[in-house]
């Protein structure tokens, strides 16, 4: 293979100098007569951030960061010609991601079962059916230490064991694909990109608990995921991987798909069961847990999509292998959907115990457009925020809980300095109020009242008494709500309250929004001494609140202004103040 050199300017501030550097580098290659043998390529992203000019030499993969023009001859001589790293200059790039759940995502054609089989697909199933008793499978799962990836973190092996031991002539296996947290889409991606691994996980689970019937519960908003699962189930039936006598054994299982109609609460297992039964998606008090008395009163095991995708690998490589990944309490890896104001949004899979900083800065490249990250939000509407000061926190079930957040299903929303924490709390609470099923009073009434108070605060009408009341209602909801939705709905409020009390106080006492986000508490003014009278703001205003002309300058009519911030964004000389 010929030599290839990647270059990219990774500095956060200032102009991108990749092109200039490219010219210099190419000049040096020409001097040495190497321009035809070496491919010099400007890349869009080199996977390293905030380290100046970065050069990578392939195929050996020598990486150089903060490269100066004077360093080029040495790199060309040693690495490009010599195939060796430049002594003392070459750096290594830590490999932070570890792909177990996403092992096939983006690698195989999700609509081809052959592609999946070629990547060791259904080998774990063959191994299990060929010689493992259900008890041995459960033992292996318990040894792996895998905990439910839907958020609660209940040990999967234990759940299987309870369902196995429960009395019942018929048992059911359910895959929970009712992913609903704002900003989370790991399960959709896995279902769309690697449907067979989830099916394989389900068959193994069904074998372990002794079920002969399984259901995929997928939300109707995921049409492509449904289509691909449907196709995959058909392919399996045709090849004897589903149906009677799976892979020549005596084990039978059939899978069916049930669609969720879009209610968030149906991700809760008792509500999900009610929904499959054709009833209204209402949660019911536990115990009895579904493992004892679930779908149609029979023992039922419900596992999340990501949990199931882990299972074939665990049984291929053994529980001991899996428990070697991660930290003391949380084993294996976790997929996060990193979204919000981050440079590279997308899916990342890291071993448990990776620090937040590595995910936000190391893998995802930090904040977008040079602003600074303020906090992250994990766990969706049941979770909380973690401020930047605590980015050394490890991601595992216990550490995140200690910080007042939760692991949740894996949504990670990055917020920057422009995000107001009161507004964030209001958003998540609004989501829970919308999605509350209305069955129990603490959630139905408490949520609405908390939202009313938060709206009052962001409108500049709040008092210190309101803050006390917020806390009081929060505790009541946590204690008295029927299901997880109501019990955890106040979490975003409590967690922002804990870390950003000053922001709440500013809203209440000074009627100011420090992040300049709450429309009622800010105003825009044109600074006449800085204004160039260009008229850009005049044209951008959607409500014609800016008057004037290019001779006399411009003024904002505060009574008409809707505080959308359009003028602030478009003003190049920054002559519009926001306060």
């Amino acid at each position, binding site marked *: 293979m010929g030599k290839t050199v990647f270059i990219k300017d990774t500095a956060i501030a200032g102009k991108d100098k990749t092109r200039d550097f490219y010219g210099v580098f190419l000049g040096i290659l020409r001097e040495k007569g190497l321009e035809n043998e070496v491919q010099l390529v400007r*890349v869009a992203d080199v*996977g390293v951030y905030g380290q100046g000019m970065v050069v*990578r030499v392939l195929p050996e993969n020598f990486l150089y960061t903060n490269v100066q023009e004077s360093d080029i001859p040495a790199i060309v001589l040693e690495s490009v010609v010599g195939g060796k790293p430049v002594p003392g200059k070459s750096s290594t790039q830590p490999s932070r991601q570890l792909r177990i759940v996403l092992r096939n995502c983006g690698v195989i054609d999700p609509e081809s079962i052959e*592609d999946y089989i070629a990547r060791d697909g259904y080998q774990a199933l063959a191994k299990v059916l060929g010689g493992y008793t259900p008890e041995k499978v459960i033992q292996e799962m318990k040894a792996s230490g895998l905990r439910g990836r839907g958020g609660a973190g209940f040990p999967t092996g234990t759940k299987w064991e309870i369902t196995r031991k429960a009395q019942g002539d018929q048992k059911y296996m359910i895959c929970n694909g009712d992913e609903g947290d704002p900003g989370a889409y790991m399960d959709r991606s896995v279902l769309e990109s690697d449907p067979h691994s989830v099916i394989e996980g389900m068959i193994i689970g069904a074998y372990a608990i002794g079920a002969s019937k399984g259901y995929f519960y997928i939300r109707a908003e995921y049409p492509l995921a449904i289509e691909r699962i449907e196709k995959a189930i058909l392919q399996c039936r045709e*090849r004897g991987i589903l149906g009677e006598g799976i892979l020549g054994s005596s084990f039978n299982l059939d899978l069916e798909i049930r669609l969720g109609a879009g209610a968030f609460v149906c991700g809760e297992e008792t509500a999900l069961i009610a929904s499959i039964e054709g009833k209204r998606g209402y949660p019911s008090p536990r115990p009895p847990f579904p493992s004892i008395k679930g779908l149609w009163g029979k023992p039922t095991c419900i596992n999340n999509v990501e949990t199931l995708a882990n299972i074939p690998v665990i049984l291929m490589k053994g529980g001991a292998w899996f428990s070697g990944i991660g930290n003391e309490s949380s084993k294996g890896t976790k997929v996060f959907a990193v979204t919000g104001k981050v440079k590279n949004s997308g899916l990342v899979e890291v071993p448990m115990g990776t620090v937040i900083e590595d995910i936000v800065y190391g893998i995802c490249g930090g904040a977008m457009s040079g602003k600074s990250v303020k906090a992250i939000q994990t766990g969706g509407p049941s979770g909380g925020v973690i401020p930047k000061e605590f980015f050394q926190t490890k991601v595992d079930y216990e550490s995140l809980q200690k910080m007042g957040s939760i692991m949740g299903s894996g949504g990670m929303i990055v917020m920057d300095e422009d995000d107001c924490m009161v507004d964030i709390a209001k958003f998540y609470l609004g989501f829970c109020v919308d999605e509350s099923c209305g069955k129990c009073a603490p959630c139905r009434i408490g949520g609405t009242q908390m939202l009313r108070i938060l709206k009052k605060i962001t409108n500049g009408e709040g008092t210190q008494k309101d803050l006390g009341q917020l806390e009081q209602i929060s505790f009541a909801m946590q204690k008295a709500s029927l299901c997880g939705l109501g019990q955890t709905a106040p979490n975003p409020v409590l967690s922002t309250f804990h870390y950003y009390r000053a922001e709440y106080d500013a809203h209440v006492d000074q009627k100011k929004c420090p992040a300049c986000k709450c429309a009622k508490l800010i105003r825009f003014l044109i600074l006449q001494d800085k204004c160039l009278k260009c008229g850009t703001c005049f044209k951008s205003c959607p409500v014609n609140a800016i008057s004037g002309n290019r001779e006399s300058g411009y003024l904002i009519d505060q009574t008409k202004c809707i505080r959308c911030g359009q003028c602030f964004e478009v003003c190049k000389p920054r002559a519009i103040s926001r306060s």
Partner: protein
Amino acid sequence: MTKKDLESIKEKHNGTDRNWIKVGFSTCGIAAGAKEVYETLIEEKRKHNADVEIKKCGCVGICSAEPLVEVHIKNMPTVFYGKVDKEVATKIMEKHVCGKMLVNDRIYDLKLN
């Protein structure tokens, strides 16, 4: 189907090293325009009579850079092109597949992180 059949499918599939292009076809990719990219690649392949297989795949996780196209050509580094449009897809076929030259400014070298 038995364990033996699984093995034989695996062997048949993993046989030879061939040139391929994979286009990310999950919701994220399709929404960003993967379909147009895929059709352009097929069309350009026909035009150039190129020795390359064009496949669909799922989401690799670099959602901010969709549509993503992964290109594997013998004796060249396997790379991801991000934010691919019709024009870049044409360039990938002309320059990368036929000319054995990587296309500038569109490679997302994120495999290792």
